[in-house]
């Protein structure tokens, strides 16, 4: 079946005149595909990494498709209502008050219970995944590239430039991330945007450090000198010869940090500096639920667990990736899987 499909695809591409191009493209990237396959195999061997990957994937799916999932459930509910199977018309919506009983217990229709305004906590926690996802993606994708760039320049050129960049970085790294983020968020005024800006500002320096250290050893490689002997420009050497060889630890750190950003963002909201009500942010929901901890423990515990599981998932995945990307460990896996 699979082969038939592949053959059909090849035929089609041939007819369109892209056949040879496509096969050449695949041949060129054969080793890359093999590398991915190997990493995939290695990840599959570790149950912890697998669990971490699963949690991360669930987090992404819930974050991206949260509204669709809610719509689906609501469709089901209205169907059940029109059939007379359930008596109330229920709509799960993170903002709708009195959608259920105040501080209602988890039930079939409100699986995570309700808050003091009768808002459905399932809808709120699910939407919270999207808030956390957006914050992490923005912070990581805005914070890491400048960190990599400065680390590359600092490590590659050395001298005065390096000195300057490292002094600035040291200032940022002198404070714990949360304290610095709190200070910045507080000075910008509470809100989700401030939290994102604060976390982004806090985030780049550790990547400067990491990348610089890697570049210092990578630039001593003979192939870097060989590139210089050929006349390759400094920029191209940094991008083509150094970066690909130091990217593994950056990927590992970014994965671990994904979880850390979720925690710190929740912490900022928890102390009132991040997302403001009624935004369904996990840390904020935990805080709001504290008043009712005895009466309605699920109110705080469920979003708290969501933060915990997300952070745990990225940590397990990051650790798994570290093992896979470590050349020594990978070699033993290659050996075990019959390559080399």
């Amino acid at each position, binding site marked *: 079946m699979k082969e038939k499909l592949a053959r059909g695809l090849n035929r089609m591409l041939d007819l369109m005149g892209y056949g040879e191009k496509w096969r050449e493209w695949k*041949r*060129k*990237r*054969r080793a890359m595909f093999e590398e991915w396959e190997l990493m995939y195999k290695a990840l599959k061997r570790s149950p912890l990494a697998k669990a971490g990957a699963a949690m991360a994937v669930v987090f992404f799916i819930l974050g991206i498709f949260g509204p669709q999932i809610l719509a689906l459930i609501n469709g089901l509910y209205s169907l059940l209502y029109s059939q007379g199977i359930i008596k109330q018309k229920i709509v799960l919506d993170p903002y709708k008050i009195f959608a259920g009983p105040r501080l209602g217990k988890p039930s079939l229709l409100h699986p995570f219970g309700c808050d003091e305004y009768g808002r459905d906590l399932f809808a709120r926690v699910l939407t919270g995944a999207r808030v956390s996802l957006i914050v992490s993606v923005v912070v990581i994708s805005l914070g890491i590239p400048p960190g990599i760039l400065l680390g590359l320049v600092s490590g590659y050129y050395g001298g005065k430039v390096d000195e300057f960049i490292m002094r600035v970085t040291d200032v940022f790294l002198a404070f714990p991330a949360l304290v610095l983020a709190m200070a910045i968020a507080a000075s910008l005024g509470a809100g989700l945007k401030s939290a994102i800006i604060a976390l982004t500002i806090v985030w780049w320096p550790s990547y400067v450090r990491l990348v610089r250290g890697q570049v210092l050893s990578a630039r001593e490689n003979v192939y870097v*000198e*060989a*590139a210089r*002997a*050929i006349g*390759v420009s400094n920029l191209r050497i940094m991008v083509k010869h150094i970066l690909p060889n130091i990217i593994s630890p950056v990927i590992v750190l970014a994965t671990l940090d994904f979880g850390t950003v979720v925690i710190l963002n929740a912490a900022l909201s928890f102390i009132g500096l991040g997302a403001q009500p009624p935004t369904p942010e996990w840390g904020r929901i935990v805080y709001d639920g504290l008043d009712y901890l005895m009466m309605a423990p699920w109110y705080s515990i469920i979003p708290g667990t969501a933060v915990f599981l997300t952070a745990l998932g990225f940590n397990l995945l990051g650790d798994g990736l570290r093992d896979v990307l470590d050349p020594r460990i990978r070699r033993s896996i290659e050996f075990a899987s019959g390559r080399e």
Partner: protein
Amino acid sequence: MEAPLIQVKDLVKYFPVKKLFITVGQVHAVDGVSFEIMRGETFGLVGESGSGKTTLGRLMLRLLTPTSGDVVYNGRSIFELEGGELKEFRRRAQIVFQDPYTSLNPRMTIYDILSEPINVHKIRIPDKREYIVKLLETVGLGEEHLYRYPHEFSGGQKQRIAIARVLALRPEFTVLDEPTSALDVSVQAQILNMLKELQSEFKFTYLFISHDLSVVKFMSHRIAVMYVGKIIEVAPSDDLFSEPLHPYTQMLLSALPVPDPKYTRSKQIIKPRGQVPSAISPPPGCRFHPRCPFAREKCKAEEPELREVKPSRLVACHLYS
């Protein structure tokens, strides 16, 4: 007489020795070296490990900046070149490194590795892929290796790829820094023969560096002997072996496992003795005097200059003054 392609003029390179960020001394890696290389010639450079051969080779390609002195290529100082001229020099002068295991980027396919020089210098060729396949065939590899990564090759094959990368630019001058010393003996001979054939085909000029006298002899027209940052003797290949002048050269030859029949007739046989002195604080006077059986008072005080003592024979030794 033809002008030399390269003139090395009193070249000096010191590396600072640091302990806890404080400079405590200097390695005299290359310490006042002068010689010339003619077009189409293979100039051998032989010396023990640590004598400064690699440093000299890197200086001659401007991969290092000298402490003092100059390298003149085609009549121009290479350290004054800028922009387009520097780029043109980078095209004309190339290097093959000692260790093929580290001289190829592990993240690039052979195709990418060989494309790079072509792209950087915008070499105009009708079909890049075909050109690269031809390069591979020239060094005894083939199309099937195009999209492999370096780790899929043996040491000898990697060195062939490094040589193909040099050939891509059709350089005039190539530094071969112990290109075979990391390889098995059987592979060494193949690579050396290939390098010789390439030279006669493309009229390359080589600086051939090695610590192995027999290899240098096989490859070179002229040979310079290096000792602790200095060149102590320069001679045509055959002359050096039939009649070594400097006591150090004589000592090196006596250590050869299979003596050359011509060489055994030579009168002086010196057994190796003593230790190579430190390049951080080389002894005053002649650097070889602590090990030299013929050392006199003058050798301890005064540094001998490299002088022509017979036609085309240069030696730095007070015995010949």
